[in-house]
């Protein structure tokens, strides 16, 4: 009797294992879970994705926008083919959905993405040429001393409730809403030049002039903040300013607001929000763009964003035809080859839009200071001497196998990286050459740096064995795999790396506050268009100058008295790059900064992700470019107003 029961239990156990295994195989291939065991089967998928990464997609340049007049109204005429109206476009978004519908309070990607469908700004950046062009404005000019910027609005602009959009709205947006710090005050920081906020004045009903205290080249990208409806928001903000409750602005137009109360100037307007399920947007009836036949855009009847908290489910929804498009980041390394196989049967096309502007890097803690509270060094003086030894950092950079990381961890859907500006950036310094893994050269560099290898271990000049702890955030399988690879690569040099994954929040705290860390693998977002956006990272007094973080005093200002020569050089590159308008000189400064970081290796860059999208062939006017990528759900649809659904014959 007992025997039989045991048999049954055994059979059940076997079955469960079998079921689990089957499921695991399908999940393994459908996700980027990466272990050393699966390295072998990665080689087969890599051959398929290699062809993908060779074929960078860039739609043909469709020409400039044309200004057309319909009655009194001045509108931009779009650049794509004339499509047909109607239909619902459904996309999915990974995560927990937007946190707010208040465009100026948004500080997360999901809210920012929805806001970018609803609001426009004075200027746009051309996704082909990277040049600024007028959007709500008709034209703009910069004075000879680079301190005055004059914008003229188009005639006849209207908000979605029919109220005219005039210079008053612009002056309110920049002079009150952003200047007084309503919502997310980072737009104010971006606009401020060395602590001075630019002044803004109304010249006439359609003309606005900004004045900055010193010439500031990144100003044009900063002035791209969305314009706010004064007639709706002023009654609210004036009350809050009076009562000194600027923070309460965040609860206006939050996720519990009534959609019909939103007033927008962009192509779409919120129609319905089902928490945890989807966001539905409908066209703004007063959107000021027309197509080639002078019909008012957008084409779509409805834009639906499904909120999907699991990436496998996101893929399944696309396979099942629930969604029309998998935008950037939805197709991960491990998935790309599988998605590619379904291109024909699923009637969609995959586009490779090149490397992302984000970077993934390895860094050592270069801090040489003592903790004023405890009187102890943040970093053990022995380790300090290693980490501050440039040869060690260079040796590590030559010892890590980036090629294998891209092939095995990203399954080919990545791009090796050696510079502080991603190859996606228009300021990328292409004179800085990539190099392959070279353990022999790495060993030579270590010898030059005074390190000696005895047996299996590396020792410094004083005979201390080189050993340190490497952190990254737990739960991120890509970074986990990177750390394991680095650990193995450095082992061949004799460096013992103790790898320890920790919670993301703790990692951030170590790097930005407690400063008690040796080595970290992290990622940062970047900018394709404006390297000055990285000032917070690169300036020695920056808030994210992570490789040698100086802590702010009680007033929040960071004082630096121990900057290295190369840190000072980078500071001056950024300062000059910010105040120079001449493009070749800007390139010169930002090239020099990349050269310095390439030589000094404060961050040892590893790779960038590739942006891959998969788009149903029934979508018309989909013209993605490597530069025209924003927050999802707008994502690669920089021309979302002219996207249409082809009629099925």
């Amino acid at each position, binding site marked *: 009797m007992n025997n039989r029961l045991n048999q049954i239990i055994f059979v059940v156990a076997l079955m469960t294992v079998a079921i689990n295994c089957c499921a695991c195989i399908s999940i393994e291939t459908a996700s980027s879970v990466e272990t050393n065991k699966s390295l072998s089967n990665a080689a087969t998928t890599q051959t398929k994705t290699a062809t993908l990464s060779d074929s960078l997609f860039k739609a043909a340049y469709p020409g400039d926008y044309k200004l057309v007049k319909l009655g009194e109204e001045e509108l931009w005429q779009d650049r794509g083919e004339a499509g047909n109206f109607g239909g619902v476009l459904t996309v999915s978004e990974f995560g927990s959905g937007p946190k707010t519908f208040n465009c100026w309070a948004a500080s997360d990607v999901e809210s920012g993405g929805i806001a970018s469908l609803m609001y426009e700004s004075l200027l746009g950046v051309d996704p082909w040429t990277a040049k600024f062009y007028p959007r709500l404005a008709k034209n703009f000019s910069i004075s000879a001393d680079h301190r005055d910027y004059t914008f003229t609005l188009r005639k006849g602009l209207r908000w979605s409730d029919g109220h005219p959009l005039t210079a008053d709205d612009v002056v309110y947006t920049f002079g009150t809403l952003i200047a007084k710090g309503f919502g997310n005050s980072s737009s104010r920081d971006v606009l401020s030049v060395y602590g001075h906020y630019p002044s803004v004045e109304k010249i006439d009903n359609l003309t606005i002039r900004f004045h900055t205290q010193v010439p500031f080249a990144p100003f044009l990208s900063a002035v791209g903040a969305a314009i706010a409806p004064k007639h709706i928001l002023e009654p609210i903000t004036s009350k809050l300013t009076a009562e000194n409750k600027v923070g309460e602005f965040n609860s206006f137009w939050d996720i*519990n607001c009534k959609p019909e109360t939103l007033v927008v100037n962009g192509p779409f307007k919120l129609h319905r929000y089902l928490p945890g399920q989807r966001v539905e947007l409908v066209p703004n009836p007063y959107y000021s763009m027309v197509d080639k036949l002078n019909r008012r855009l957008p084409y779509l009847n409805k834009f639906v964003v499904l909120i999907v908290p699991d990436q496998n489910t996101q893929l399944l929804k696309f396979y099942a035809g629930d969604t029309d498009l998998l935008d950037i980041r939805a197709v991960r390394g491990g998935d790309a080859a599988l998605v590619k196989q379904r291109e024909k049967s699923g009637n969609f096309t995959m586009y490779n839009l090149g490397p992302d502007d984000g970077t993934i890097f390895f860094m050592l803690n270069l801090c040489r200071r003592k903790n004023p509270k405890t009187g102890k060094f943040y970093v053990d003086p022995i380790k300090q001497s290693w980490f501050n030894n440039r040869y060690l950092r260079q040796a590590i950079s030559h010892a890590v196998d980036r090629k294998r990381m891209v092939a095995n961890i990203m399954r080919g859907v990545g791009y090796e990286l050696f510079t502080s500006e991603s190859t996606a950036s228009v300021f990328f310094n292409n004179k800085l050459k990539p190099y392959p893994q070279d353990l022999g050269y790495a060993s030579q560099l270590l010898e030059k740096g005074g390190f000696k290898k005895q047996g299996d271990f590396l020792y410094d000049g004083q005979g201390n064995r080189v050993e340190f702890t490497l952190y990254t955030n737990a739960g991120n399988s890509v970074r986990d795999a990177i750390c394991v690879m680095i650990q193995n690569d450095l082992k061949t040099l004799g460096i013992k790396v103790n790898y320890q994954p920790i919670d993301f929040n703790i990692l951030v705290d170590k790097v930005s506050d407690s400063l008690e860390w040796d080595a970290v693998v992290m990622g940062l977002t970047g900018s394709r268009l404006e390297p000055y*956006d990285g000032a917070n990272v690169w300036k020695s007094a920056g808030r994210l100058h992570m490789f040698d973080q100086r802590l702010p005093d009680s007033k929040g200002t960071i004082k630096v008295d121990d900057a290295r020569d190369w840190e000072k050089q980078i500071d001056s590159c950024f300062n000059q790059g910010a105040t120079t308008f001449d493009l070749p000189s800007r390139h010169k400064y930002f090239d020099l900064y990349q050269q310095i970081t390439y030589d000094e290796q404060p961050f040892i860059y590893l790779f960038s992700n590739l942006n891959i999208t998969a788009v149903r062939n029934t979508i018309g006017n989909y013209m993605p470019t490597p530069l025209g990528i924003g927050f999802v759900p707008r994502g690669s649809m920089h021309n979302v107003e002219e996207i249409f659904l082809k009629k099925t014959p």
Partner: protein
Amino acid sequence: MSLPVYIFKRCLQALPLLFIISIMSFVMMRLAPIDPLAYLKANPAISQATIKAEEERLGINKPPVVQYFLWLSNLLKGDLGISTSGGSVNKLLLQRAGNTLLLGVASVFFTWLIAIPAGVYAAVYRNTLIDRGFTILTAIGMSMPTFLLALILLMLATQTHILPIGGLTSQDFFEKNLLGKGLDILSHLIIPTTVLTVIGLAGVQRQMRASLLDVLQLDYVRTARAKGLPESKVIYAHAVKTAINPLITLFGFEFASLLSGAALTETVLAYPGLGRLTLEAVETKDMNLVMASLMLGGLMLISGNLLAAILLKFADPRIALE
């Protein structure tokens, strides 16, 4: 003791319990080394001033004791505070509570509908092929991770195109008539309910089987059989009635799960429930939201236990309310 007095007494007892739960939850959340602003701090575009302002807004720069009593006094006023994302916690919970209750009731209903007869059958026909079939099924249900089962069913749905891939409503939901709406929600409920039923089935079925097996060996059952009562009457009128007692206690605990949600299943199936909301809140240390969810869970557990005690009283007259 009469029933209303008993209920009143139990409610009074619940108050200090809830207070202790709230203090424990608060201390645990405070001790967790999670910084709700970590993502802001890791973003190069955010300034120090913004982070300070955000700390001010969320009140995390105040001492913990002050924070706790602020929270408590707001709670007594019926205000659960604001979430880190700015929305009111009351509204956030209300939005999801209905969905979670729907799924919870459906899965508990089907679990018990299947598990009780299956348990009785398995006990009566012990060691037959069908009993072993149930054993295998419940063993799978117990050993299979929920997210895996959910994912397998989703893949099946992708291949067959019969059932929707996650979510709760279709995109054309609001254009449908009342019947269409009902059918739409039903079709979306099939996969999550199946997952939770299969997982929940195991425990209840095994409990029912074991409990009935015990009772069937008791003297009074033998007496009933000896009296010549028909077997169906022996089992259903006499044995099951006694054997059900431990299951009522179990039901009290299951009641608590009605509003706590199933975070993993909800995540994989993109179901807009409370479990997912709570999980996301814990990950971002959304204090007010987590506290509210934990208090709700505690409240449901206490009322589940009370409910079980009352039901037990009705099911078994021997039990006295004290």
